């Protein structure tokens, strides 16, 4: 067993980058949970480990999620943050919701590579993303969906490679892509109970294979794939990610489309571009489904 490259990259960034007052991780997967545990005693700043429940069929886990949001709020207060009023928090939620709407409205005119860059900006800088800087099109090519774990730098190379070779990524179902957008906020409820609304929008709607059972993921795919007229699906899988790995067979059965299960390797992660193996597999896949 090795360390998942995303969890490893997270640890490297935390150790080497500096310039932050706290570190936040979640228990979404065992590797991230344990990396957080290993990092904590080595850090000069506090680490908050958000307990993300896997189950969702009963009210208990949702309550646990809500309690974790409240605990996270307290944690931020201990760092010097001032607890926001409900109104202020609701306004902030609105700001993010509008940014996501803006990105979604641009989605149909952007290539997958441009959309990925826009998402990266959003994740890094928050709702300041405007969208004008991401030039629309050309939107030609075989419509594809990418699903899988969280994006690392190599994803940009892979997206670009696919789109330069005749593919068009019309659905970004990676952990950092549009699949992880929360549901819409009810702003009336948000002003009354922002934590409750955050819980509903995030915990109750985001599809992910770590959920037990994992049915959200498949209902999302069944809705999005036909809507975007997807002709093939590429699963970008980080090494040692059991969660996505175990879904491969079920995905093949459920989506009824060609699926390329692409486990990334060391050369893909080294920053110099994508490996020959990955390139060949993508080219073969594109050729076969064209």
């Amino acid at each position, binding site marked *: *067993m*090795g*360390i*998942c490259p995303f969890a490893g990259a997270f640890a490297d960034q935390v150790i080497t980058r500096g310039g932050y007052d706290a570190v936040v991780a979640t*228990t979404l*997967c*065992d*590797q991230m*949970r*344990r*990396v957080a*545990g*290993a990092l*904590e*005693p080595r850090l000069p700043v506090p680490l908050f*480990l958000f*307990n993300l*429940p*896997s*189950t969702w*069929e*009963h009210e*208990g*886990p949702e*309550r*646990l999620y809500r*309690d974790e949001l409240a*605990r996270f709020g*307290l944690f931020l207060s201990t760092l010097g943050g001032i607890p926001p009023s409900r109104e202020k928090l609701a306004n902030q939620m609105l700001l993010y919701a509008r940014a996501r709407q803006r990105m979604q409205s641009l989605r149909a005119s952007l290539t997958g590579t441009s959309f990925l860059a826009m998402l990266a900006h959003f994740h890094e800088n928050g709702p300041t993303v405007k969208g004008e800087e991401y030039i629309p099109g050309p939107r030609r090519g075989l419509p594809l969906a990418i699903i899988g774990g969280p994006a690392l730098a190599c994803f940009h190379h892979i997206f670009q490679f696919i789109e330069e070779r005749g593919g068009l990524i019309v659905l970004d179902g990676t952990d950092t892509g549009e699949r992880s957008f929360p549901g819409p906020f009810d702003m009336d409820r948000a002003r009354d109970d922002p934590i409750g609304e955050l819980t509903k929008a995030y915990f109750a709607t985001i599809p992910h*294979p*770590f959920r*037990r*059972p*994992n049915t959200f993921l498949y209902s999302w795919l069944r809705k999005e794939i036909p809507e975007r007229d997807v002709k093939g699906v590429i699963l970008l899988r980080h090494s*040692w*990610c*059991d*969660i996505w*790995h*175990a*879904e*491969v*067979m*079920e995905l093949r059965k459920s989506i009824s489309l060609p699926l390329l299960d692409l486990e990334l390797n060391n050369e893909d992660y080294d920053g110099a571009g994508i490996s020959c193996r990955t390139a060949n597999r993508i080219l073969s896949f594109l050729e076969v489904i064209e």
Partner: protein
Amino acid sequence: MNGDPVRLSLDQWDTRYEELRAGGLNEPHYGGPLRRHADGGDRRLCRITFDPSKAALRLWNFLLTEEERLRSARSGGKKIVGAMKDLGTVPVMAFSSPELVAFYPDGAWWLPCFKELNTDLLSTADSLGLGEAFCPVRAMVGAFISEKHFPLPDFLTCSVGATCDDFSAIAQRLHSLGFPILWWEMPHRRPPGNGEASDILPGGTAATRGQIEFVRSELERVREALGNLAREPVDDAALSRGIRAANRVRRCIGELRHMVFTAPRCPLPALEMLIAEMMALHFCSDRDECLAVLEELKDEVGRRVTTGHGILDRDAARLFWVNPVADLRVMNLLEEWGGRICGTDYLFFHALDEIPEDISPMDALAMMALADPMTGSAADRARRIIREIRLFGAEGLVISRIPGASHCATEGIEIAAMIRRELGIPVTEIEVPPVADSLSPVLRNRLEAIIEVIKERRVS
């Protein structure tokens, strides 16, 4: 038996069994020669050595007849609960009802070892997308599909959340294949924050009251489902009785562990001791008989300790062992190469600690579940290991990685670092696949190295 007990091969056990029979051996209904299990497909038994006592014979026969016991329970009208992953909590609840028996399908992870890979369990898992990158517990899926190794449970539970990803993913695969599962959430056990109400759990870690209440509410769902299955509620009184009975088993194992790990000469082989500890999980499907088996083993060990007899030389290196091995033979090999086990953490400390009897049974079960070493940090686990190393006087630590297991990527490194820092004893990390014969030279190098270092340190 006079003099030191000598470990026996399966062939030698054939002779020994005949001698015992001639001497009027009185066995339970599941008794018989060990050979029959090997003839029935458990070929690994031909490659391992056994303790020569009647008590060990009973232990092995009890272990290797579990499938028959489960089938007999079903034909007697009982419902079978397949508890997954929590390792020690749900079976205590299930056995509180006279209508239920429980077992861990997880135990199928040893089947490839017992069958020396002459089984389609792993290839079935492969064909379902669960290849070698996953922990050997993937064999469980093959066992469900083939229906050859245990009767299909009437009801399945699985704890998820702060568990290992392998298991969660494998259980999800099972669910997708049409085996309904009651999922219950196990939160990550975290240290209580300033001012947060908390309790000390069995084993010494702490959890917040909020987390205990949450786990209790999850277990209430399990309790309700068990009651529906049994067609009678599993009430607090029944649970309290179940907890007391489970504690009798845990106390017996605790006494056995203490005697075996602290005796000047090792009185019981590591392999039999591993099996005895595993009995804490689901009482090998018969709680009363389990206690009787363990009591007999404890008596045997007590006699040996009192008379100063043992199965190993006095100078065997005293090792603490972390994680269960996928290949049982490795426990034999460790002893052949000069080591003995003086302390273990087979990933279920919480199933060995006594469950509180002076509080509400559901609170007690929630606290026990939260004490699972898997749900907390590696540092928590290491602290417990340090305490036990001191208690049992272990001189070195062996961390046995489980192939493919998500927690093994970082946990061993962290535990090893803490043990070196706090105790300054030698540590080695190995990885043991279901059949480790081809890796035997590598394992031997590593284990002999730590044993040699321990013995050199004694001299200096």
